[in-house]
């Protein structure tokens, strides 16, 4: 199957595989990184994996020219995601900075005041 993927013309599945790898990398990064900014980067990666899927589903080109899938909505949603992610990064960064102001570190494991 893998060999097939390498030699076949590129289709939606190819993009989905790449998207899956990015998504999982991002998700694991979110789980393992202790640095708040590292977690943020994980989120970016997850969003990108999802974006890749949207674009792939929306691309008529990857379907051999036939219409179908989500059409332009794929690109439109990708656009929304990118713009929102940029704003989200700014907000998350502000939170990280504030966290840093209060804790003098960006280690998220230190933010445990609310723990019983």
């Amino acid at each position: 199957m893998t060999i097939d993927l390498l030699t076949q013309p590129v289709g939606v599945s190819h993009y989905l595989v790449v998207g899956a790898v990015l998504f999982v990398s991002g998700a694991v990064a979110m789980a393992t990184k202790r640095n708040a900014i590292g977690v943020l980067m994980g989120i970016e990666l997850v969003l990108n994996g999802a974006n890749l899927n949207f674009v792939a589903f929306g691309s008529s080109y990857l379907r051999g020219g036939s219409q179908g899938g989500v059409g332009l909505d794929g690109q439109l949603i990708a656009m929304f995601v990118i713009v929102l992610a940029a704003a989200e990064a700014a907000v998350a960064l502000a939170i990280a900075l504030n966290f840093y102001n209060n804790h003098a570190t960006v280690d998220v494991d230190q933010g445990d005041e609310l723990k019983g």
Partner: protein
Amino acid sequence: METAAINWHSFFFLLFALVACTFAVAMLLSSNIVRMAFYLVISLGAVSGLFFLAGADFVGALQLMIYVGGTVVVLIFGVMLTARAPFLRMRTGVAQWALAAIVGGCLLAVLLQAALSVDEWAPPSMVGENPPVSNTYTAAPLGLGVLGVRVDQLDEEDATLRNGMSGYLLPFEIVSIHLLVVLIGAAYLARTKRRPKEPTGDRQETVEPMISSGK
């Protein structure tokens, strides 16, 4: 396979895909925050290459501009502001890594299975020996799509269905207002309050936050 056609499209797809995946994993494994940012940039850049290959030029350029150009610079900015030691490292425990690896592996398995199991998503039998360089107009349809005119739905016979795609103008505006509020909030949040340092010993330390009286 008899149609083992690695055409140029496949070639560049494989190249970009490899770069994107490699650096995504590298970012995951790196413990140096600046290198992580750097790997993330390369990964995102390669993803934008994938967008171009999928015929989504506008989204690809948007990705380069906003994601790679903007977001990551902001990230690096944050890194520099918050890194006390020049090259900050924070180690994650082995147990946590193991757990994450197991969960991540399972997730990947499920996703791959999903990606490869639907026939409709499988590679088209024939893209053509030499797919043309994509020079379709992507910006205009997207703009029209936001306004509710869907050029890709024109084949739809049912006009109500065609126009039923009422566009994204309202959501777009709502989101942009929302983002404005959020960004102002972020700017406020990032400000900090601090006490001017007490004079300590011989050092004169009355820090004036003003820059200077001149223009």
